[in-house]
Protein backbone atom coordinates (compact mmCIF):
# COMPACT_ATOMS: atom_id res chain seq x y z
CA UNK A 1 0.00 0.00 0.00
CA UNK A 2 1.36 3.38 -0.94
CA UNK A 3 0.73 5.34 2.23
CA UNK A 4 2.33 8.46 0.79
CA UNK A 5 -0.43 9.11 -1.75
CA UNK A 6 -3.04 7.76 0.62
CA UNK A 7 -2.11 10.36 3.21
CA UNK A 8 -2.08 13.32 0.90
CA UNK A 9 -5.35 12.47 -0.82
CA UNK A 10 -6.98 11.68 2.48
CA UNK A 11 -5.72 14.79 4.18
CA UNK A 12 -7.21 16.97 1.52
CA UNK A 13 -10.56 15.22 1.63
CA UNK A 14 -11.05 13.64 5.03
CA UNK A 15 -11.97 16.74 6.97
CA UNK A 16 -14.86 17.34 4.57
CA UNK A 17 -16.33 13.85 4.95
CA UNK A 18 -19.65 13.57 6.74
CA UNK A 19 -20.53 9.91 6.35
CA UNK A 20 -19.26 6.50 5.26
CA UNK A 21 -21.41 3.92 3.48
CA UNK A 22 -20.31 0.31 3.16
CA UNK A 23 -21.64 -2.61 1.14
CA UNK A 24 -20.76 -6.29 1.52
CA UNK A 25 -22.22 -9.61 0.49
CA UNK A 26 -20.83 -13.17 0.54
CA UNK A 27 -17.88 -13.27 2.95
CA UNK A 28 -18.94 -9.91 4.36
CA UNK A 29 -19.32 -10.68 8.06
CA UNK A 30 -15.64 -11.55 8.48
CA UNK A 31 -14.49 -8.63 6.35
CA UNK A 32 -16.65 -6.15 8.27
CA UNK A 33 -15.56 -7.39 11.68
CA UNK A 34 -11.96 -6.83 10.61
CA UNK A 35 -12.34 -3.37 9.15
CA UNK A 36 -14.33 -2.16 12.17
CA UNK A 37 -12.07 -3.79 14.76
CA UNK A 38 -10.29 -0.61 15.87
CA UNK A 39 -13.25 1.77 15.93
CA UNK A 40 -14.24 3.27 19.24
CA UNK A 41 -17.20 5.22 20.55
CA UNK A 42 -15.34 8.44 19.74
CA UNK A 43 -15.53 7.77 16.00
CA UNK A 44 -16.75 10.98 14.45
CA UNK A 45 -18.58 9.79 11.36
CA UNK A 46 -21.75 7.79 10.99
CA UNK A 47 -21.09 4.51 9.18
CA UNK A 48 -24.01 2.93 7.33
CA UNK A 49 -23.74 -0.66 6.20
CA UNK A 50 -25.75 -2.91 3.92
CA UNK A 51 -24.80 -6.54 4.31
CA UNK A 52 -26.62 -9.14 2.23
CA UNK A 53 -27.80 -12.00 4.39
CA UNK A 54 -30.70 -14.42 4.29
CA UNK A 55 -33.65 -12.60 5.90
CA UNK A 56 -33.86 -14.89 8.92
CA UNK A 57 -30.20 -14.40 9.85
CA UNK A 58 -30.12 -10.68 9.59
CA UNK A 59 -32.24 -9.69 12.52
CA UNK A 60 -29.51 -10.25 15.12
CA UNK A 61 -26.81 -8.56 13.07
CA UNK A 62 -26.56 -5.45 15.20
CA UNK A 63 -26.35 -7.47 18.42
CA UNK A 64 -23.64 -9.74 17.03
CA UNK A 65 -21.50 -6.79 15.97
CA UNK A 66 -22.17 -4.83 19.14
CA UNK A 67 -20.75 -7.66 21.23
CA UNK A 68 -17.45 -7.41 19.39
CA UNK A 69 -17.00 -3.72 18.69
CA UNK A 70 -16.33 -0.58 20.67
CA UNK A 71 -18.45 1.66 18.48
CA UNK A 72 -22.22 1.95 19.02
CA UNK A 73 -24.08 -0.45 16.70
CA UNK A 74 -27.77 -0.41 15.81
CA UNK A 75 -30.29 -1.17 13.11
CA UNK A 76 -31.22 1.99 11.20
CA UNK A 77 -34.79 3.04 12.05
CA UNK A 78 -37.12 4.84 9.69
CA UNK A 79 -36.94 8.65 10.26
CA UNK A 80 -33.98 8.35 12.65
CA UNK A 81 -31.28 11.04 12.26
CA UNK A 82 -27.75 9.86 11.46
CA UNK A 83 -25.23 10.38 14.24
CA UNK A 84 -21.47 10.12 14.43
CA UNK A 85 -19.85 7.31 16.39
CA UNK A 86 -22.58 4.95 15.27
CA UNK A 87 -22.50 1.95 12.98
CA UNK A 88 -25.90 1.42 11.38
CA UNK A 89 -27.07 -1.76 9.68
CA UNK A 90 -29.90 -1.88 7.17
CA UNK A 91 -32.92 -3.86 8.40
CA UNK A 92 -33.91 -7.11 6.81
CA UNK A 93 -36.40 -7.00 3.95
CA UNK A 94 -36.34 -3.21 3.39
CA UNK A 95 -34.25 -0.87 1.30
CA UNK A 96 -32.46 1.78 3.33
CA UNK A 97 -32.15 5.36 2.03
CA UNK A 98 -30.81 8.65 3.33
CA UNK A 99 -32.92 11.81 3.11
CA UNK A 100 -31.81 15.42 2.55
CA UNK A 101 -32.27 16.20 6.24
CA UNK A 102 -29.77 13.39 7.03
CA UNK A 103 -32.30 10.98 8.39
CA UNK A 104 -33.06 7.44 7.25
CA UNK A 105 -36.07 6.22 5.36
CA UNK A 106 -37.04 2.64 4.55
CA UNK A 107 -38.79 1.26 1.50
CA UNK A 108 -40.41 -2.01 0.46
CA UNK A 109 -39.82 -1.48 -3.24
CA UNK A 110 -38.88 -4.51 -5.32
CA UNK A 111 -35.47 -6.07 -4.64
CA UNK A 112 -32.60 -4.87 -6.83
CA UNK A 113 -30.00 -7.45 -7.92
CA UNK A 114 -32.19 -9.91 -5.97
CA UNK A 115 -31.34 -7.90 -2.88
CA UNK A 116 -33.42 -5.95 -0.41
CA UNK A 117 -31.74 -4.09 1.20
CA UNK A 118 -29.72 -3.23 -1.87
CA UNK A 119 -26.30 -1.58 -1.72
CA UNK A 120 -26.99 0.47 -4.85
CA UNK A 121 -30.13 1.97 -3.32
CA UNK A 122 -28.28 3.10 -0.19
CA UNK A 123 -25.21 4.34 -2.07
CA UNK A 124 -27.16 6.33 -4.66
CA UNK A 125 -29.37 8.06 -2.12
CA UNK A 126 -26.36 8.84 0.09
CA UNK A 127 -24.41 10.23 -2.88
CA UNK A 128 -27.36 12.49 -3.72
CA UNK A 129 -27.38 13.90 -0.22
CA UNK A 130 -23.68 14.10 0.66
CA UNK A 131 -21.94 14.50 -2.71
CA UNK A 132 -18.21 15.06 -2.04
CA UNK A 133 -18.72 14.59 1.71
CA UNK A 134 -19.33 10.85 1.30
CA UNK A 135 -16.99 7.88 1.26
CA UNK A 136 -18.26 4.60 -0.19
CA UNK A 137 -16.63 1.24 0.50
CA UNK A 138 -17.46 -1.93 -1.43
CA UNK A 139 -16.28 -5.30 -0.13
CA UNK A 140 -16.41 -9.00 -1.01
CA UNK A 141 -19.53 -10.42 -2.68
CA UNK A 142 -20.95 -12.73 -5.31
CA UNK A 143 -23.22 -10.36 -7.25
CA UNK A 144 -23.10 -6.93 -8.86
CA UNK A 145 -24.96 -4.90 -6.28
CA UNK A 146 -23.01 -1.80 -5.28
CA UNK A 147 -21.07 -1.35 -8.52
CA UNK A 148 -23.43 1.28 -9.89
CA UNK A 149 -23.59 2.87 -6.46
CA UNK A 150 -19.81 3.27 -6.30
CA UNK A 151 -19.88 4.82 -9.77
CA UNK A 152 -22.55 7.32 -8.66
CA UNK A 153 -20.63 8.26 -5.51
CA UNK A 154 -17.57 8.93 -7.64
CA UNK A 155 -19.54 10.88 -10.20
CA UNK A 156 -20.97 13.16 -7.51
CA UNK A 157 -17.54 13.85 -6.11
CA UNK A 158 -17.32 11.36 -3.24
CA UNK A 159 -14.37 9.19 -2.25
CA UNK A 160 -14.51 5.51 -3.31
CA UNK A 161 -12.82 2.46 -1.86
CA UNK A 162 -13.04 -1.03 -3.36
CA UNK A 163 -11.64 -4.13 -1.75
CA UNK A 164 -8.77 -5.56 -3.79
CA UNK A 165 -10.43 -8.45 -5.69
CA UNK A 166 -7.35 -10.58 -5.02
CA UNK A 167 -7.96 -10.12 -1.29
CA UNK A 168 -11.74 -10.67 -1.40
CA UNK A 169 -13.27 -13.98 -0.36
CA UNK A 170 -15.58 -13.61 -3.39
CA UNK A 171 -14.21 -11.12 -5.95
CA UNK A 172 -17.30 -10.67 -8.17
CA UNK A 173 -18.65 -7.57 -6.46
CA UNK A 174 -15.39 -5.59 -6.28
CA UNK A 175 -14.59 -6.63 -9.84
CA UNK A 176 -17.97 -5.41 -11.07
CA UNK A 177 -17.31 -2.02 -9.47
CA UNK A 178 -13.83 -1.70 -10.97
CA UNK A 179 -15.18 -2.70 -14.37
CA UNK A 180 -17.30 0.48 -14.35
CA UNK A 181 -14.32 2.71 -13.61
CA UNK A 182 -11.35 3.18 -11.29
CA UNK A 183 -11.79 3.72 -7.55
CA UNK A 184 -9.80 6.18 -5.43
CA UNK A 185 -8.45 3.30 -3.35
CA UNK A 186 -8.19 -0.40 -4.11
CA UNK A 187 -7.07 -1.99 -0.87
CA UNK A 188 -6.93 -5.28 1.02
CA UNK A 189 -8.84 -5.52 4.31
CA UNK A 190 -5.99 -4.32 6.57
CA UNK A 191 -5.59 -1.26 4.33
CA UNK A 192 -9.30 -0.44 4.58
CA UNK A 193 -9.15 -0.86 8.33
CA UNK A 194 -6.18 1.53 8.51
CA UNK A 195 -7.93 4.02 6.26
CA UNK A 196 -11.08 4.11 8.41
CA UNK A 197 -8.90 4.68 11.48
CA UNK A 198 -6.90 7.37 9.68
CA UNK A 199 -10.08 9.26 8.78
CA UNK A 200 -10.87 9.75 12.41
CA UNK A 201 -7.41 11.09 13.23
CA UNK A 202 -7.35 13.65 10.48
CA UNK A 203 -10.65 15.03 11.66
CA UNK A 204 -9.77 15.76 15.24
Amino acid at each position, binding site marked *: MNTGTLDSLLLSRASALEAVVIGASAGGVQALLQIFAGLGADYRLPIVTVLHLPDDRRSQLAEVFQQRLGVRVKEA*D*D*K*ESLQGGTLYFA*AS*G*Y*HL*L*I*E*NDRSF*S*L*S*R*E*EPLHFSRPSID*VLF*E*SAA*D*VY*GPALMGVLLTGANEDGAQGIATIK*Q*LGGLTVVQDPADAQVPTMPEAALALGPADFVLPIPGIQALLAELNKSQC
Partner: protein
Amino acid sequence: MAPDRDIEIELRLLIEAIYLKYNYDFRDYSGASFKRRVRHALQQFNCNTITALQERIMHEPSAFMQLLQYLTIPVSEMFRDPSYYLALRQQVVPLLKTYPSVKVWVAGCSTGEEVYSLAILLKEEGLLERSIIYATDINPRSLEKAERGIFSLENIRTYTENYQKAGGQRAFSDYYTAAYEGALFDKSLRENVTFADHSLATDSVFSETQLVSCRNVLIYFNKALQDRAFGLFHESLCHRGFLGLGSKESLDFSSYAKRFEPLVKSERIFRKA
Protein backbone atom coordinates in the same frame (compact mmCIF):
# COMPACT_ATOMS: atom_id res chain seq x y z
CA MET B 1 -26.59 13.46 -15.49
CA ALA B 2 -28.03 16.93 -14.94
CA PRO B 3 -26.68 18.82 -11.94
CA ASP B 4 -28.40 17.82 -8.76
CA ARG B 5 -30.05 21.15 -8.16
CA ASP B 6 -31.88 20.98 -11.47
CA ILE B 7 -33.31 17.61 -10.54
CA GLU B 8 -34.56 18.95 -7.21
CA ILE B 9 -36.29 21.82 -9.02
CA GLU B 10 -37.84 19.57 -11.65
CA LEU B 11 -39.04 17.15 -8.99
CA ARG B 12 -40.76 19.90 -7.05
CA LEU B 13 -42.44 21.16 -10.19
CA LEU B 14 -43.61 17.65 -11.09
CA ILE B 15 -45.06 17.13 -7.61
CA GLU B 16 -46.78 20.51 -7.79
CA ALA B 17 -48.19 19.73 -11.25
CA ILE B 18 -49.56 16.40 -10.05
CA TYR B 19 -51.15 18.09 -7.06
CA LEU B 20 -52.74 20.93 -9.02
CA LYS B 21 -53.92 18.82 -11.90
CA TYR B 22 -54.87 15.50 -10.29
CA ASN B 23 -55.13 16.35 -6.58
CA TYR B 24 -52.68 13.65 -5.48
CA ASP B 25 -50.48 15.18 -2.82
CA PHE B 26 -46.92 13.81 -2.81
CA ARG B 27 -45.41 16.94 -1.30
CA ASP B 28 -44.67 15.36 2.05
CA TYR B 29 -43.42 11.97 0.94
CA SER B 30 -39.93 10.74 1.82
CA GLY B 31 -37.85 12.42 -0.86
CA ALA B 32 -35.16 9.84 -1.50
CA SER B 33 -37.34 6.92 -2.46
CA PHE B 34 -39.76 9.20 -4.31
CA LYS B 35 -36.88 10.48 -6.43
CA ARG B 36 -35.79 6.92 -7.07
CA ARG B 37 -39.24 5.96 -8.30
CA VAL B 38 -39.45 8.99 -10.58
CA ARG B 39 -36.06 8.13 -12.07
CA HIS B 40 -37.25 4.59 -12.65
CA ALA B 41 -40.40 5.94 -14.31
CA LEU B 42 -38.30 8.13 -16.61
CA GLN B 43 -36.77 5.01 -18.11
CA GLN B 44 -40.13 3.30 -18.49
CA PHE B 45 -41.62 6.38 -20.16
CA ASN B 46 -38.56 6.94 -22.33
CA CYS B 47 -38.26 10.49 -21.04
CA ASN B 48 -34.87 12.15 -20.74
CA THR B 49 -35.88 14.65 -18.10
CA ILE B 50 -38.44 15.01 -15.34
CA THR B 51 -39.72 18.09 -17.17
CA ALA B 52 -40.48 15.92 -20.21
CA LEU B 53 -42.36 13.51 -17.97
CA GLN B 54 -44.30 16.42 -16.51
CA GLU B 55 -45.32 17.53 -20.00
CA ARG B 56 -46.61 14.01 -20.74
CA ILE B 57 -48.69 13.66 -17.62
CA MET B 58 -50.09 17.19 -17.91
CA HIS B 59 -51.66 16.39 -21.26
CA GLU B 60 -52.35 12.67 -20.99
CA PRO B 61 -54.36 11.55 -17.97
CA SER B 62 -53.73 7.93 -18.91
CA ALA B 63 -49.99 8.56 -18.66
CA PHE B 64 -50.54 9.92 -15.16
CA MET B 65 -52.45 6.78 -14.20
CA GLN B 66 -49.49 4.79 -15.45
CA LEU B 67 -47.04 6.96 -13.50
CA LEU B 68 -49.12 6.46 -10.37
CA GLN B 69 -48.32 2.75 -10.58
CA TYR B 70 -44.63 3.55 -10.15
CA LEU B 71 -45.19 6.17 -7.49
CA THR B 72 -47.35 4.07 -5.18
CA ILE B 73 -45.34 0.83 -4.76
CA PRO B 74 -48.23 -1.59 -5.15
CA VAL B 75 -46.49 -4.54 -3.54
CA SER B 76 -48.07 -6.69 -0.86
CA GLU B 77 -48.30 -10.25 0.49
CA MET B 78 -50.89 -12.29 2.34
CA PHE B 79 -50.09 -12.73 6.02
CA ARG B 80 -46.88 -10.77 5.52
CA ASP B 81 -45.02 -10.95 8.87
CA PRO B 82 -47.06 -13.89 10.24
CA SER B 83 -46.17 -12.94 13.82
CA TYR B 84 -48.16 -9.72 13.40
CA TYR B 85 -51.31 -11.66 12.53
CA LEU B 86 -50.65 -14.15 15.30
CA ALA B 87 -50.40 -11.29 17.80
CA LEU B 88 -53.64 -9.78 16.47
CA ARG B 89 -55.35 -13.13 16.84
CA GLN B 90 -54.08 -13.82 20.33
CA GLN B 91 -54.02 -10.40 21.91
CA VAL B 92 -56.38 -8.11 20.02
CA VAL B 93 -59.21 -10.35 18.82
CA PRO B 94 -60.24 -11.43 22.36
CA LEU B 95 -60.78 -7.75 23.18
CA LEU B 96 -62.53 -7.04 19.88
CA LYS B 97 -64.97 -9.82 20.71
CA THR B 98 -66.34 -7.71 23.56
CA TYR B 99 -67.76 -5.21 21.05
CA PRO B 100 -71.22 -5.83 19.58
CA SER B 101 -69.88 -4.90 16.15
CA VAL B 102 -66.38 -4.26 14.92
CA LYS B 103 -65.12 -1.78 12.38
CA VAL B 104 -61.66 -2.26 10.92
CA TRP B 105 -59.79 0.22 8.72
CA VAL B 106 -57.04 -1.10 6.48
CA ALA B 107 -55.34 2.12 5.35
CA GLY B 108 -53.15 1.81 2.26
CA CYS B 109 -54.50 -1.65 1.46
CA SER B 110 -52.87 -1.78 -1.99
CA THR B 111 -53.98 -4.86 -3.95
CA GLY B 112 -55.84 -6.33 -0.98
CA GLU B 113 -53.62 -9.08 0.39
CA GLU B 114 -53.73 -7.59 3.89
CA VAL B 115 -57.52 -7.24 3.72
CA TYR B 116 -58.12 -10.88 2.80
CA SER B 117 -55.67 -11.99 5.47
CA LEU B 118 -57.57 -10.04 8.12
CA ALA B 119 -60.92 -11.27 6.81
CA ILE B 120 -59.76 -14.89 7.09
CA LEU B 121 -58.52 -14.27 10.61
CA LEU B 122 -61.78 -12.61 11.67
CA LYS B 123 -63.79 -15.40 10.06
CA GLU B 124 -61.92 -18.09 11.98
CA GLU B 125 -62.49 -16.15 15.17
CA GLY B 126 -66.22 -15.90 14.48
CA LEU B 127 -66.06 -12.13 14.11
CA LEU B 128 -66.32 -11.54 10.38
CA GLU B 129 -70.11 -11.52 10.29
CA ARG B 130 -70.36 -8.67 12.72
CA SER B 131 -67.45 -6.75 11.24
CA ILE B 132 -67.14 -4.08 8.60
CA ILE B 133 -63.76 -3.64 6.96
CA TYR B 134 -62.94 -0.36 5.24
CA ALA B 135 -60.11 -0.94 2.80
CA THR B 136 -58.69 2.29 1.43
CA ASP B 137 -55.93 3.34 -0.92
CA ILE B 138 -55.10 6.14 -3.37
CA ASN B 139 -54.38 3.86 -6.31
CA PRO B 140 -57.63 3.01 -8.14
CA ARG B 141 -56.05 0.17 -10.09
CA SER B 142 -54.86 -1.46 -6.88
CA LEU B 143 -58.35 -1.09 -5.38
CA GLU B 144 -59.91 -2.74 -8.44
CA LYS B 145 -57.51 -5.62 -8.15
CA ALA B 146 -58.23 -5.91 -4.43
CA GLU B 147 -61.94 -6.07 -5.14
CA ARG B 148 -61.48 -8.90 -7.64
CA GLY B 149 -59.65 -10.99 -5.06
CA ILE B 150 -57.59 -12.96 -7.54
CA PHE B 151 -53.98 -13.55 -6.59
CA SER B 152 -51.14 -15.19 -8.43
CA LEU B 153 -50.85 -18.94 -7.87
CA GLU B 154 -47.09 -18.54 -7.84
CA ASN B 155 -47.24 -17.01 -4.38
CA ILE B 156 -49.75 -19.40 -2.85
CA ARG B 157 -47.10 -21.62 -1.32
CA THR B 158 -45.53 -18.73 0.59
CA TYR B 159 -48.97 -17.48 1.61
CA THR B 160 -49.91 -20.95 2.87
CA GLU B 161 -46.78 -21.10 5.02
CA ASN B 162 -47.42 -17.58 6.29
CA TYR B 163 -51.05 -18.47 7.08
CA GLN B 164 -49.98 -21.48 9.12
CA LYS B 165 -47.36 -19.50 11.03
CA ALA B 166 -50.02 -16.85 11.69
CA GLY B 167 -52.08 -19.41 13.61
CA GLY B 168 -54.36 -20.44 10.73
CA GLN B 169 -56.83 -23.11 11.81
CA ARG B 170 -57.84 -24.72 8.54
CA ALA B 171 -56.39 -25.70 5.20
CA PHE B 172 -55.51 -22.46 3.43
CA SER B 173 -56.92 -23.97 0.23
CA ASP B 174 -60.40 -23.82 1.82
CA TYR B 175 -60.39 -20.12 1.04
CA TYR B 176 -59.70 -20.08 -2.68
CA THR B 177 -60.36 -21.91 -5.92
CA ALA B 178 -57.46 -22.42 -8.26
CA ALA B 179 -58.37 -21.22 -11.74
CA TYR B 180 -56.61 -20.25 -14.91
CA GLU B 181 -56.19 -16.60 -13.88
CA GLY B 182 -54.98 -17.43 -10.40
CA ALA B 183 -56.36 -18.19 -6.94
CA LEU B 184 -59.92 -16.83 -6.67
CA PHE B 185 -60.61 -15.99 -3.05
CA ASP B 186 -63.97 -16.81 -1.54
CA LYS B 187 -66.58 -14.09 -2.11
CA SER B 188 -67.86 -14.39 1.43
CA LEU B 189 -64.55 -12.94 2.64
CA ARG B 190 -65.32 -9.60 1.05
CA GLU B 191 -69.03 -9.42 1.73
CA ASN B 192 -68.41 -6.99 4.58
CA VAL B 193 -65.53 -5.15 2.95
CA THR B 194 -65.91 -1.65 1.52
CA PHE B 195 -63.13 -0.68 -0.86
CA ALA B 196 -62.70 3.06 -1.20
CA ASP B 197 -60.44 5.74 -2.58
CA HIS B 198 -59.06 7.66 0.40
CA SER B 199 -55.82 9.55 0.90
CA LEU B 200 -54.09 9.88 4.23
CA ALA B 201 -52.53 13.05 2.82
CA THR B 202 -55.67 14.94 1.81
CA ASP B 203 -58.85 13.28 3.16
CA SER B 204 -60.42 13.23 6.59
CA VAL B 205 -61.85 10.62 8.93
CA PHE B 206 -64.97 8.84 7.65
CA SER B 207 -65.95 6.48 10.45
CA GLU B 208 -65.31 5.38 14.00
CA THR B 209 -63.23 2.19 14.12
CA GLN B 210 -61.96 -0.30 16.69
CA LEU B 211 -58.87 -1.41 14.77
CA VAL B 212 -56.70 0.41 12.23
CA SER B 213 -54.08 -1.58 10.33
CA CYS B 214 -51.73 0.60 8.32
CA ARG B 215 -48.64 -1.27 7.23
CA ASN B 216 -45.72 -0.20 5.05
CA VAL B 217 -47.39 3.04 4.05
CA LEU B 218 -45.98 5.45 6.64
CA ILE B 219 -42.37 4.67 5.67
CA TYR B 220 -43.08 6.59 2.46
CA PHE B 221 -44.14 9.72 4.36
CA ASN B 222 -42.01 12.38 6.05
CA LYS B 223 -42.56 13.12 9.73
CA ALA B 224 -45.15 15.83 9.12
CA LEU B 225 -47.30 13.59 6.94
CA GLN B 226 -46.85 10.66 9.32
CA ASP B 227 -48.25 12.91 12.02
CA ARG B 228 -51.24 13.78 9.87
CA ALA B 229 -51.93 10.08 9.39
CA PHE B 230 -51.54 9.33 13.09
CA GLY B 231 -53.97 12.17 13.75
CA LEU B 232 -56.56 10.56 11.49
CA PHE B 233 -56.10 7.17 13.16
CA HIS B 234 -56.36 8.71 16.60
CA GLU B 235 -59.56 10.51 15.66
CA SER B 236 -61.09 7.46 14.01
CA LEU B 237 -60.28 4.96 16.76
CA CYS B 238 -62.77 4.48 19.57
CA HIS B 239 -61.71 4.79 23.20
CA ARG B 240 -58.91 2.22 23.73
CA GLY B 241 -58.94 1.26 20.03
CA PHE B 242 -56.06 -0.64 18.38
CA LEU B 243 -53.47 0.46 15.84
CA GLY B 244 -51.18 -1.95 13.96
CA LEU B 245 -48.19 -0.71 11.94
CA GLY B 246 -45.60 -2.30 9.66
CA SER B 247 -42.69 -4.18 11.21
CA LYS B 248 -40.31 -1.22 10.81
CA GLU B 249 -42.73 1.59 11.55
CA SER B 250 -43.05 3.33 14.88
CA LEU B 251 -44.58 6.23 16.74
CA ASP B 252 -41.19 7.09 18.26
CA PHE B 253 -40.59 10.17 16.16
CA SER B 254 -44.17 11.38 16.24
CA SER B 255 -45.96 13.94 18.37
CA TYR B 256 -48.59 11.23 18.88
CA ALA B 257 -46.11 8.98 20.73
CA LYS B 258 -47.73 9.66 24.09
CA ARG B 259 -51.27 9.20 22.85
CA PHE B 260 -50.77 5.55 22.05
CA GLU B 261 -49.30 2.85 24.27
CA PRO B 262 -47.61 -0.31 23.02
CA LEU B 263 -49.73 -3.44 23.36
CA VAL B 264 -47.41 -5.86 21.55
CA LYS B 265 -44.24 -3.87 21.12
CA SER B 266 -42.34 -6.33 18.92
CA GLU B 267 -45.26 -6.43 16.45
CA ARG B 268 -45.88 -2.68 16.49
CA ILE B 269 -49.40 -3.05 17.83
CA PHE B 270 -50.56 -0.07 19.87
CA ARG B 271 -53.59 0.95 21.84
CA LYS B 272 -55.09 4.39 22.16
CA ALA B 273 -54.02 5.72 25.55
